[in-house]
């Protein structure tokens, strides 16, 4: 199957096996192989990953901010391409997204903030 990285993969919503949104494809990892064409080996989700893509001064500033306060940006979640199915609109991965860093903030806020407000 042919996959256009920018059109069909980058910036698409990532769904886990429970059909949960776990983020967007913030970056793509290429593996360079000696004597062969590079392959797309994985994609990544994470604030640091998309901040780097902004480029220029804003990008550098956002990356520096994330490095200074690691708690701000989630860690980076990486999915190997062999576990991925894509429709060109969304990307599905065969795993539970809940324990990944992509949902760390979501889980922490649910447990420590939102659940404590009556009526949540």
């Amino acid at each position, binding site marked *: 199957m042919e996959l256009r990285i920018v059109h069909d993969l980058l*910036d698409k919503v990532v769904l886990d096996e429970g059909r949960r949104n776990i983020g967007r494809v913030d970056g793509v990892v290429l593996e360079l192989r000696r004597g062969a064409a590079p392959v797309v080996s994985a994609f990544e989700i994470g604030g640091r990953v998309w901040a780097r893509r902004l480029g220029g001064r804003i990008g550098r500033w956002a990356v520096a901010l994330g490095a200074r306060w690691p708690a701000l940006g989630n860690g980076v979640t990486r999915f190997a391409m062999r576990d991925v199915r894509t429709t060109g609109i969304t990307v599905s991965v065969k795993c539970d997204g809940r324990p990944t860093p992509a949902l760390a903030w979501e889980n922490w806020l649910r447990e420590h903030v939102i659940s404590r407000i009556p009526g949540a």
Partner: protein
Amino acid sequence: MKRILDLTLGIVTSIGGFLEAGSIITAVQAGAVFGYKLLWTIALGTLGLMLLVEQSGRLAAVTGRTVGDALRERFGISFYIIPLVTGLLVSFLVLASEIGGVSLALQMATGISFQWWAMPVAFAGWFLLWKGNFGIVEKGSSLLGLVTIVFVVAALKLHPDWGRVSAGLLPTAPDHDAARYWYIAVSIIGASISPYLYMFYSSGAVEDGWGTDDLSTNKATAVLGMSFGGVLSAAVLIIAALVFLPRGIQVDRYEQAGLLLPPVLGHTGFVLFLASLGIACFGATTEITLAMAYQLAQGFGWDWSENAKPKQNARFSLTYTVTILLAGLVMAVGIDPLELTNFSMMLTAASLPVTVIPMFVLMNDEALVGEHRNRWFSNAALGALSILTIVVLLSAVPLQLLGGS
């Protein structure tokens, strides 16, 4: 039968939800200073909104993607960050002015300063979002918002000269206060075409699970709902032209707007004005707050839905909670609501190109909208609108400096 009911409800909600602080205040100011002369800007703004609502609704119905989703997916994060940041910034100021509108209605009703009302109003809005679902937020306040039809009744009771009203629908140059004239013209465009409206509308279409069978409902809602809504704004302008202009009242304080209806409808008019202002601004408060949370959540691929329990989408619910309370705080510290409303309408107008122009690409992308992509008419209209938004952007800064006060 259900389809007709849905259609009627859709149109009725867009009428009841049309007016908000910005459209009321800018229309009052326009009528009070320039009579019917600025009616054309309401017509133009309404046509622009109609176009964008139809296209964003079509996008959502055909692809299941909201405008926010599609912008990030098609253009990538390095572009999406621009409409995201400007959208959130502008919407936040508009949100604060809507909370100001509700608070001022309460001030006029009770005599207690709007500053004291700001946080309770923000809290009430939050409570509705926390406990309610999308249907309640969208339909509830819009149905109550039908009270704003009182403006049409009052305008008709004043027997305006229809010849002069229709003359106002044609753009003309002002014969006095040119800077002020164009300032209000641009503010009216900003008040009519707010990006939060079509962000909210396309997200609503996804919340309601629209598909291609809803395309006719979408078109009817856009055309009929927005036209009738525009008639409400026009009615406000006409009343101001007949009540304020002859008396020389130029609205430089919010409270003066409260004098709009009493000469026509007596004390009931005053009460109905307060109800209209309060309900219209409260509806807008909840919708803008949701629109902001939608835009952030969609941009970063979080789960979002106003129909789910708050804890199911923790980041989404936290976003609207923090947003609405912060906006309430802006009003509570005593920023002048009228100045903020005028300023944020101007800023809204200036922010339009970053969302309007990309719609071209989205609505012509065959991979995305397929056979439902724009035809020549929609493209020509969107092209004209894009040029208008650029002109508006370029004129916004000089006008803010010349005509702002």
